[in-house]
């Protein structure tokens, strides 16, 4: 036992010798502890306090609560299934088929990532709702899109990029010689697919399914807009806070939402994602042979095209909504909505949101990279804990983060040293960072795992300190991944609703909250204009970041010798 302790002390002493790295460790641990662990702990303590007992009894006795919980699970299941299927379809077409428009399909697969939370929902209502362009005008149906069906449609489209990206990466990395070996042994293409390809993709499919499930459960925007009478936990929490001012109920419901989310997320993170069948034997030998059979190719291509068309329609239609007088009803052109957003009431929201997101992005990016470096490259007791905590930000639903922040920072702490944060810009920035840091850590970890440690060791053996090694060797090699992380952080911050909905005040206006406002009161035109402006801001930011951070030296291609 004492030997264990001496070894650990020596580990920490060595880490401390690392100077700047030790400071970095302190900063990141401090941040995670204060802004991730503490708010969650607050929620736990409030929801398990004596006052909460009465709330539990009330809530769990009401049949309504159980229906809400069931609804949430059904919704999660539906979105996860449809989303994974969509992602698989697009990934399959991208990797295995030789058809036209592949680059277009790839863009469609990533498009929803940068889209604001209400865009697809609003389009869907105007297109497929009771007075929908397609349902009423074209098909003469009177279809109620509000509810579970609308939710699944909208969320599947909004979230399937997660599945798409996971599966595309996985399918590309699969060793094609395995399928070739199966064919060589006499298996038909279908049999190969069923018995070799699909089983090897199971971790990817399972991962996607679980991640989509968690995202669906956490989402607030869509249930609010298109849920109709179909209430889920996230919307119920919103009602509890905004409608009833009942913080205890909010905390209790948050706990109820948190438990399945965390369980599923960590099941995916620690169990499923570790079971990877990809490249066990090292370098994949050769190219993927595309599937040639026309009976497979063209139907899948058509399906992909159809869905892409639908998605393009939905997003394009937002633009229409932004420039027409009354979206879906009066198609007269107007610029009043844009005027509202750019110069009128909405301009403050536009500048505030962009400013806060811009501040949060590099913070999340750098801290994420620091944590990733510590977790991947250094050994110390508590490393697993740091890894776990940094990933929590992704696992915890946004509404829960919001409530946690309110509970934790509603009054000054430590005798006034730490001020009350609610109502300030800082708390919104912190919420953004907490939401984004997990993504940055993940991209950082993936990138660092690609860089051969021998290079960093070579640098050390030539006399360079950790900081110099990181600056001159590691950073240039992971720059593309770092850039991706920044873009992701910015997009996610700009389009975040559930985390900040409880934190906005008249002093600091956030675009997504304004969109909710406009959409709830039926002013779809303004909402659409907000969406268009938001997409434009995110796209320009991406362009700027590529120009600023990103010239790739081409060396990243050759990292692993």
């Amino acid at each position: 036992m004492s030997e264990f302790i001496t070894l650990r002390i020596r580990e920490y002493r060595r880490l401390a010798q690392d100077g700047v790295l030790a400071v970095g460790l302190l900063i990141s641990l401090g941040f995670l502890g204060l802004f991730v662990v503490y708010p969650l702990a607050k929620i736990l303590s409030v929801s398990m306090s004596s006052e909460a007992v009465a709330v539990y009894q009330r809530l769990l006795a009401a049949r309504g609560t159980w229906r809400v919980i069931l609804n949430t699970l059904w919704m999660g299941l539906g979105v996860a299934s449809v989303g994974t299927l969509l992602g698989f379809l697009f990934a399959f077409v991208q990797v295995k088929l030789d058809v036209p428009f592949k680059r277009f399909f790839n863009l469609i697969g990533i498009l929803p990532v940068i889209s604001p939370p209400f865009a697809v929902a609003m389009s869907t209502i105007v297109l497929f709702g009771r007075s929908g362009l397609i349902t009423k005008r074209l098909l003469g149906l009177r279809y109620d899109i509000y509810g579970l069906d609308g939710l699944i449609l909208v969320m599947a489209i909004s979230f399937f990029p997660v599945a798409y990206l996971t599966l595309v990466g996985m399918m590309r990395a699969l060793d094609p010689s395995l399928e070739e070996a199966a064919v060589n042994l006499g298996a038909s293409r279908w049999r190969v697919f069923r018995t070799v390809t699909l089983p090897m993709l199971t971790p990817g499919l399972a991962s996607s399914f679980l991640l989509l499930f968690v995202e669906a459960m956490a989402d607030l925007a869509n249930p609010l807009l298109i849920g109709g009478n179909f209430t889920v936990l996230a919307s119920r929490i919103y009602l509890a806070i905004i409608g009833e001012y009942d913080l205890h109920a909010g905390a209790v419901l948050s706990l109820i939402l948190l438990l399945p989310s965390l369980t599923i997320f960590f099941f995916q993170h620690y169990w499923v994602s570790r079971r990877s069948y990809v490249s066990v034997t090292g370098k994949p030998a050769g190219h993927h042979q595309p599937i040639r059979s026309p009976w497979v190719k063209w139907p899948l291509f058509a399906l992909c095209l159809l869905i892409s068309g639908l998605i393009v329609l939905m997003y394009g239609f937002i633009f229409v909504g932004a420039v027409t007088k009354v979206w879906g009803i009066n198609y007269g052109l107007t610029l009043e909505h844009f005027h509202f957003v750019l110069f009128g009431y909405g301009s403050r929201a536009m500048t505030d949101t962009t400013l806060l997101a811009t501040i949060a992005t590099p913070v999340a990016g750098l801290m994420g990279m620091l944590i990733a470096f510590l977790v991947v490259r250094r050994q110390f007791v508590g490393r697993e804990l740091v890894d776990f905590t940094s990933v929590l930000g992704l696992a915890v639903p946004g509404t829960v983060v919001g409530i946690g922040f309110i509970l934790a920072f509603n009054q000054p702490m430590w005798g006034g040293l730490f001020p009350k944060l609610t109502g300030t810009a800082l708390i919104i920035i912190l919420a953004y960072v907490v939401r984004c840091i997990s993504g940055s850590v993940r991209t950082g970890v993936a990138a660092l795992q690609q860089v051969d440690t021998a290079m960093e060791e070579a640098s050390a053996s030539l006399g360079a300190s950790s900081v110099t090694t990181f600056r001159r060797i590691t950073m240039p090699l992971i720059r593309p991944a770092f850039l991706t992380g920044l873009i992701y952080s910015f997009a996610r911050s700009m389009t975040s609703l559930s985390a900040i909905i409880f934190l906005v005040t008249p002093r600091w206006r956030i675009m997504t909250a304004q969109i909710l406002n406009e959409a709830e009161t039926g002013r779809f035109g303004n909402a659409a204009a907000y969406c268009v402006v938001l997409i434009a801001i995110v796209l320009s930011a991406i362009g700027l970041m590529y120009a600023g951070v990103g010239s790739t030296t081409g060396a990243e291609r050759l990292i692993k010798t």
Partner: protein
Amino acid sequence: MESTTLVLDNLVKTFGRRGEVRAVNGLSLEIRQGEFVTLLGPSGCGKTTTLRLIAGFEFPTSGRILLDGKPINDLPPNKRPMAMVFQNYALFPHMSVFDNIAYGLKVKRQPADAIRESVEIVMQLMNLVGLGGRMPHQLSGGQQQRVSLARALVMQPQVLLFDEPLSNLDAKLRVQMRVEIRRLQQRLGITTVYVTHDQAEAMSLSDRIAVIHDGQIEQIGTPSEIYQHPASLFVADFIGRANFIESVVQGRMDGRMTFDLFGHPLILPASQGEFAAGEPVYLVIRPEAVRVSRQEGRYAGEVKQMVYLGSTVEYEVETHDQFIAVVVYDPQQGDIFEEGSRVFLDLPNEAFHVLPRGQ
């Protein structure tokens, strides 16, 4: 007395939460200034771990490492005056050859003209003149290897460490580089620790070889000591090839021992070792010491396998229910026996070596 540069004192390195994996299990070694010592052993024997302990990329669970008498256990790798040449070269892909070589000097903040001079000298030494502007991916394997070595040499380190640097090169290039490395090391007189699993490399490069097995040194000595007087079964079998014939000590008298060899007595001087009568032993004889012919002899056998390799022929001859490996150099027509031939083996006394046969 020569000054000792590097001392490893009972090094232990364990991995795993409860220390289940003992990669290095009590390893002690003293390396003198300017000496070329190779750590030789099969995969997983702990030689690379030992090298990484010396370099500072791993820290010992117990034991000490001393450089010029001072313990350097807790010194981080970038503060140790050692330079390492990696198996995959570890060239920085985003820097040119010149910048790669100059890297360590830049870290030391040497002035630019001093750097340029040093780099150019080393590039000349390593035959890399004119390649300064190229990027690593534009170089051949051999060139990359030389850049990796140049980058280490330019630091003028006290100890030079090699981690299986030649394993990624093709056979001919490997031999070439081997010669270059040895020549350079002797010329510059840098203390060198070299890790490999290739015994030919170890034999051709080293002043001394440390044969490592299960995290410990089984034997350390010059190449000829190790080859001709292997201290254990493992060493005998790992260096070169060997035939192990089971036998028993039949008697011991007058400075001589008698053994049973396929029913005939074999008499060897007692200097072979302290073995008591009745003790089970292995009689060890190298394949190249065995002679094969059609002439009547003591030990009859049948050729079970014949492999013609051009400069040698290798046989597996079955005799007395055992397979004896034989290697014949520069085979003439009369030396080549087809599979199935009946032959006679000549096993000269002087070629035998005795090792204990444990329970």
